């Protein structure tokens, strides 16, 4: 009996994963199908952009600054070996716009805004607020989740742009006033070397994809959380773990697709 039990358990686990994936995909399409409210009542979305975006701004800007400082120092250390320290501006800008801006912003967003979205939806469920809404003939998916979803999708590229901008200023602060690199070379090499479509636009596409992924995971975890303190706390943890893994995995796939031939 034992080997059969093991196979049955494996089968059950695989089926459960596939079911979860199906439920997750259906949840995504349910949100898309109800997205008209984001157009008909844009104020609902702008309120949520303020909530998820503005409240994440400080942590994003401060993190961007420190990442820029470190890129300035590490970049100078490497480039100096080849006498190419004048290219520091280009290295900092490319690292941020192509990779670190979208990825680190998405990771921070998952920890800051994603967890609060999951906890908020989970606690609304626990407090019967979502049932109350349903009984008032208001669809909670449409009224509560859709504005939050689009707010996350809109906020993420803006936050990633802020992160990259502050990061470049951080790299400049270390490279130019501190180390003494020529400011003209710092900025002109950056302008010459960064391509709007290959570098900046692809970074924006990445952050939009991460925005969809992280916000969707956060809302899904909140919506399906068990309506108890323990259930909500587990869902919040899952948002960070699944969100972070999804960002890193998708980053690899997107990088391979976008820059594979570059």
């Amino acid at each position, binding site marked *: 009996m034992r080997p059969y039990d093991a196979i049955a358990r494996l089968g059950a686990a695989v089926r459960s994963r596939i079911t979860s994936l199906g439920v997750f995909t259906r949840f995504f399409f349910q949100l898309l199908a109800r997205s008209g409210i984001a157009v008909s009542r844009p104020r609902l979305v702008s309120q949520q952009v303020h909530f998820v975006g503005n409240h994440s701004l400080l942590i994003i800007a401060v993190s961007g600054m420190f990442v820029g400082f470190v890129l300035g120092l590490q970049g100078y250390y490497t480039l100096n070996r080849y006498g190419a320290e004048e290219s520091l501006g280009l290295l900092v800008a490319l690292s941020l716009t192509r990779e670190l801006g979208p990825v680190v912003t998405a990771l921070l967003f998952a920890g800051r805004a994603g967890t609060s979205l999951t906890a*908020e939806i989970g*606690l*609304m469920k626990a*407090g*019967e*607020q979502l*049932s*109350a*809404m*349903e*009984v*008032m*003939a*208001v*669809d909670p998916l449409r*009224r509560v989740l859709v504005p939050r979803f689009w707010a996350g999708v809109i906020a993420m590229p803006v936050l990633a742009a802020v992160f990259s901008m502050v990061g470049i200023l951080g790299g400049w602060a270390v490279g130019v006033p501190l180390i003494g690199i020529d400011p003209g070379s710092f900025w002109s090499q950056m302008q010459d070397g960064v391509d709007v479509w290959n570098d900046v636009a692809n970074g924006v596409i990445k952050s939009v994809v991460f925005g969809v992924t992280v916000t969707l995971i956060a809302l899904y975890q909140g919506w399906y959380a068990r309506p108890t303190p323990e259930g909500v706390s587990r869902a919040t943890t899952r948002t960070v773990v699944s969100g972070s893994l999804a960002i890193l995995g998708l980053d690899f796939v997107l990088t391979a697709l976008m820059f594979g031939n570059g």
Partner: protein
Amino acid sequence: MSSADNAQIVLQFSGVSLGYGDFTVLRGIDLQARRGQVVAIMGGSGSGKTTMLRAATGQLRAQAGEVRVFGQALAGIGQHDLQRLRQRMGVLFQQGALFTDLDVFENVAFPLREHTRATEAEITRRVLDKLDAVGLRAAAHLRVSEISGGMARRVALARAVVLEPELILYDEPFAGLDPISLGITARLIRDLSDRLGCASVLITHDVAESFAIADQVYLVGQGELKVAGTPADLQRSADPYVRQFLDGAPDGPVAFHYPVTPAFERWLSRREQA
């Protein structure tokens, strides 16, 4: 029954059985609520009163029998039709279920914003009017986290009635209220039914207040409808179950123990085998 009489019936249960999974909480329930009537559904804790409310709102489907709201059967009803019926109902939840991301004013304004095209001035007037009726006009600007539990229930009451619905379901409207708020809330429920001509269904175990305002009382217990009648009929009843409930006597037919369910028996047999 004449068609005019039928039109008066807002909520009707006919031989309804309700439960969750393989566990039936209530069997063979017959109930009617008419326009302008206050109907109290009473019973001990866990007797299935809230389950009846969930059946009336279409959140729970009947295992047997028929639930009709505004003359329409809820069994097999489409989501769109159910939404239309729900727009004509107001529900006061046991815990209030106020939206914690909105302040007191916006909570009461919520149904107006979702279901009407009222102007901002009209919304302000109607919301403040309803908040005034529950004594909380000056609390309109407060956040939900800043008000007490009793105040939250009064805000929830204002929200439930702001659209002036044709059927209002109150789940434990008197729980957690101080004696003054309790008396005012009871009068408000009666006034709303008289003024709007709506049917009010109260789920409660507060005998004194509900008997003071109810036209019809249904007492449920032991998985069935024990008795139905006017408050005076129940007061005169010699039924031991009714007497124990109304007099609050410790001894009598009302079971103190939670009934054994198939799920419990399975759980117990698993524990005994382990």
